[in-house]
């Protein structure tokens, strides 16, 4: 990979933008998804921008804060980027929980949108 790692700043700024929107007003997240996007939230799947935003907006909390601890980005052939985020979140007055999220980003016209998204809370019941 002799080219400059452009996926890193792109991934970073996407993530920053995403969590900012998420924290301020989740309904605005429709801007980062497209109609072909798919969200896998704790194992459940939501297809399409509308369904995704509906799911996110209907999550049972008013206020949410994210603290991002780890980020990593990798390029995928055909100009996709995969971004990983691990961090902690606090919803309303609930205890702090860890989370892990993966974003698959694609360049559409001039913007980078999320075509697939996977979210898992870290304290998960295995087995």
């Amino acid at each position, binding site marked *: *990979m002799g080219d400059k*790692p452009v996926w890193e700043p792109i991934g970073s700024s996407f993530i920053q933008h995403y969590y900012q929107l998420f924290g301020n007003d989740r309904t605005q997240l429709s801007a980062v998804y497209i109609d072909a996007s798919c969200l896998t939230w704790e194992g459940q*799947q939501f297809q399409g921008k509308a369904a995704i935003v509906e799911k996110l907006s209907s999550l049972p909390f008013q206020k949410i804060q994210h603290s991002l601890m780890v980020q*990593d980005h990798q*390029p995928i052939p055909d100009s996709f980027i995969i971004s*990983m985020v691990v961090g902690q979140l606090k919803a309303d007055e609930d205890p702090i929980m860890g989370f892990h999220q*993966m974003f698959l980003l694609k360049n559409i*016209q001039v913007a980078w949108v999320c075509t697939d998204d*996977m979210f898992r809370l870290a304290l998960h019941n*295995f087995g």
Partner: protein
Amino acid sequence: MCSTLRKCGTYRTEVAECHDHGSPFQGRKKGGNSLRDNSDKRNCHHEHGGYERPSSHCQENDGSVEMRDVHKDQQLRHTPYSIRCDRRMKWHSEDEICITTWRNRKPPGRKMRQNTQDGYTRNWFKVTIPYGIKYDKSWLMNSIQSHCSAPFTPVDFHYIRNRACFFVQDATTASVLKDVSYKICDDENRKICIFVNHSTAPYSVKNKLKPGQMEMLKLTMNKRYNVSQQALDLQNLRFDPDLMGRDIDIILNRRNCMAATLKIIERNFPELLSLNLCNNKLYQLDGLSDIIEKAPKVKTLNLSKNKLESAWELGKVKGLKLEELWLEGNPLCSTFSDQSAYVSAIRDCFPKLLRLDGRELSAPMIVDIDSSEIMKPCKENFTGSETLKHLVLQFLQQYYSIYDSGDRQGLLGAYRDEACFSLAIPFDAEDSAPNSLRKYFEDSRNMKTLKDPHLKGELLRHTKRDIVDSLSALPKTQHDLSSILVDMWCQTEWMLCFSVNGVFKEVEGQSQGSVLAFTRTFIATPGGSSSLCIVNDELFVRDASPQETQSAFSIPVSTLSSSSEPSLSQEQQEMVQAFSAQSGMKLEWSQKCLQDNEWNYTRAGQVFTMLQTEGKIPAEAFKQIS
């Protein structure tokens, strides 16, 4: 005020060149004529669907009409007010209004060179898609077809440099196709442009074989057909004595000959299984691509001793599900650095290939699943069909059994040559990391805090050799596959993304016995031999929570077992793990089965299989994945 203006009159239907003095009709004739000429050219130009085409359109040998100089004519057209008036003159004065109308704003009607007397058109139109070479041919044609109200038959599809071209026969189709321009989006969201021009008939039509020749060709082909093997041997067809004797020159490179041959195959040997085209001087396979529709069952293709220069040509017949292919004796064979690169490239094109140039290829791994089934173009069956889940589980079991084995070099086969791997842990300073994670710290790539660009680049491994070397340097592990949770969260035509959440144990060194939790995301494509091939691999490792540590590797007391529960030996624990991985049953059920069979692994396996076929094992006994 110009008296001439009044003389111009209120309604002029022709361009008037107005001069200060002299007749207002001076030069009118010239203007009129040039208009008329222009409009003809404009008629044709309209076929382009706009004025995008500059005069650089070059003529191609198949005789499509030259459209040079239209641009220039257009300019002439669009300076309508070439009225050399004295600027002092006003058009409108208080008491005079001069209205002029211009003739031929729109072209009168298309003048077609058609033979309408016969009641049908003999028009041919050439359809060109610039950069059409980028797209998969069947995707492109299907997309175009889906935008057309009526089906059409493309004739003589071929590529000229970057352009894809084909011919269609009637004006209505041509017009419909022209309208499809800029309607189809490719997967980079660029709109595909389609040009449609008048054209002379395509080569294969102009030079169509006469019925007598077709009959002779058919007889010759019949002689070369082996009924029992459903094999057609067309090697060195041109020099067949029967054909030469009749002065019939079947040069398969020529579109008309190839089309005729395929037509005969379609009519007489549609169930063809094997086709031999050896020694026919073929340098391109544009014509052969129609075989996918005409003889779709062909499994064996011999293209040896031809003039194919590049493996790219094979893409034109990619739709055939070939099991055996012969290519030796083509210039393309020497374009590869080594034998395995050659085999790999050919297998990429024909994933089900079993024999190349007479040599058996390595048998496909694990499950033999039709790749087209794995990768559905639409995301309807998103959570994964059963086959997909099965494939992923099998892949993970194979992967981790090598990963845990102590020698990770075996993983080379699981990665693509150019794949990406990186790992991260949630600690940014070595000292803050607990002992268990220290050994992962060196390789940890946290973009949030890692600023050194050199290190950033180094820690993103991007060749499979590098990846496997860095994996081999990580501590030895034992993964608990019975408790993994798999999310399959993205599926496109060519890739599958899934994330595995689970725990593993450190099996040696300082932190032996400590349990770590991980989330590993794989992006994989169907591998050449019906397995998965990793393109991206991202690993996140952290300490397991007390709850996770407890439930990991645990052999819970089963309510079905006897009351006195002796603790299991190391060997027995390993047997339970292995049995669980192989049978798919949860740990406690696996343990029960082994216990019931006195820890005789083979017997337990047989009993399990028997019970399973009898349907006696409840669903809850098996591990779940999402």
